[in-house]
């Protein structure tokens, strides 16, 4: 069983919920699919037991001795990545089209390290994550690898908890595909509703069971009502409404999951949501 927590956009409280679930689901195997800026390990703590460089992209390399500056590659390159025989690495997509047109065989494609995949042993079990090198290409492939690595530590029947990626692009597609359930954290704002609808289309596209919870629902009860109606209309299970709670800010600063604060109203609701999620497992 694989559950992915997603949010359309960052900052909606996804990590707050994911960290709490990670803490509550002792025997789960965790994946942090936010390879751009993974945060889960900061809350869960623990020790890195494995780290490997990840060759995620290729980049064109020009052999100066062979290059006659004929500019065939410049004409070919659709990413404007090569000029006067010099490759702008940040622009190069690694497509190798230039190698095809170079009359002097001056260009080769070289593997590039785009990040590290890491296995962390935290107090609540295994966490598979990655750290992408800033500005690197291909985060979707890296997410796929993070998920593959997690499988080494469990069987098909185990419970996998995935902290998903923000957005709807390649990294999100890679974190959502193949999951059984997706919990979408929605924030009651105009933009939150917008983001939610977009990310819901992704979930529907992959035919994954959608679950919804609203975070900081009392910030804007009108939009909250809109979300509730929308879910009712679409027959989507709305499984919780988390109130605005300043303890959340405190928990982030103290690097503890919100559910450890007994008097936190947000923490209480998240515990309830976790129970409901379990009834679907």
């Amino acid at each position, binding site marked *: 069983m694989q559950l992915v927590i997603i949010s359309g956009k960052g*900052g909606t409280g996804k990590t707050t919920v994911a960290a709490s679930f990670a803490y509550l689901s002792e025997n789960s195997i965790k994946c942090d699919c936010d390879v751009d800026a993974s945060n889960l390990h900061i809350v869960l703590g623990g020790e890195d037991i494995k780290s490997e460089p990840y060759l995620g992209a290729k980049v064109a390399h020009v052999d100066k001795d062979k290059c006659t500056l004929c500019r065939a590659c410049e004409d070919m390159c659709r990413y404007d990545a090569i000029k006067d025989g010099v490759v702008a690495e940040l622009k190069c997509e690694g497509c190798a089209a230039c190698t095809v047109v170079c009359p002097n065989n001056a260009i080769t494609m070289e593997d590039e390290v785009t990040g590290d995949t890491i296995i962390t042993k935290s107090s609540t079990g295994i966490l598979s994550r990655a750290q992408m090198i800033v500005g690197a290409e291909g985060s979707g492939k890296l997410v796929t690898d993070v998920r593959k690595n997690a499988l080494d530590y469990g069987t098909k029947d185990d419970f996998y908890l995935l902290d998903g990626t923000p957005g709807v692009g390649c990294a999100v597609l890679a974190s959502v595909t193949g999951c059984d359930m997706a919990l979408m954290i929605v924030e009651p704002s*105009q933009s939150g509703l917008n983001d939610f609808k977009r990310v819901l289309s992704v979930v529907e596209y992959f035919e994954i069971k959608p679950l919804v919870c609203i975070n900081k629902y009392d910030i804007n009860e009108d939009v909250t009502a809109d979300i509730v109606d929308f879910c009712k209309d679409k027959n989507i299970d709305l499984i919780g409404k988390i109130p605005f709670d300043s303890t959340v800010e405190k928990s982030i600063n103290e690097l503890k999951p919100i559910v450890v604060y007994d008097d936190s109203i947000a923490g209480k609701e998240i515990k309830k949501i976790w129970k409901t999620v379990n009834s679907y497992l």
Partner: protein
Amino acid sequence: MQIAVLSGKGGTGKTTVSTNLAKLINVRYIDCDVEEPNGFIFLKPEGIKSQEVSIPVPYVDEDKCTHCKKCIDICQFNALVHTNKVILFEKLCHGCGACRAVCPTMAITEKDRPIGKIEVGYNGDMECLGGTLNVTEPMAGPIISKLKSMIDDKTTILDCSPGSSCNVVKPLLGVDYAVLVTEPTEFGLHDLKIAVELVRKMDIPFGVVINRLSQEDNTTSRYLKDENINIVGTIPFDRNIAVMYSKGELLINDDKYKKLFTDITHNIEEAIGCSL
């Protein structure tokens, strides 16, 4: 003059800073966060004109194909496979043209495949541009590049995607100054460091806006001091701001908050040494 607003991670207030700043100084605004564009919710541009964005994907003429499989070998993205004919997995295709270039019999031509759209509208005389990636399309890059190609040297505020991947690099290419928006939390600091690394790597001068500030002294401000990074502004932790945001309102409509953005503008002007 191009000024990019970025954040390492989403939800730190990037769109809040960029929309309010753009409106305050009345310059062109571009929403480069094509996966989740939200800037128009706040700027409410009118008279929107929309145009499709496509990428060229290969089309194989079976009569000319000799099944040499050269196109399959060259494709770096595994977008082509050969069964008894060449099959394309559209969503993996980057539209690079390598397969077409390598084909010895010229069996490959290209067709445009739409992946999203670009919208242009106006808030008063302020030009607003934004792109939207079609849902379930993986590649945002071509839309961002297209948006970038549509601007001239008039002052422009670019609202970038969250994160630090290739989708943030594209809007950042060629910008003159970057504003990094962060929150004074441990997560925020972690993400801020990533954003700092990126702008440093790209040699872009930058300053930081601390959003949701409740305590003057915090690990983020200490980090900034140690690193000698310029703080160009702060926005307080204030429930009312969250409420205005949730309604899609610009903060500069309230005089109290307008002052914050006037200060940010002055500080940026000082940093870049010219007026905006």
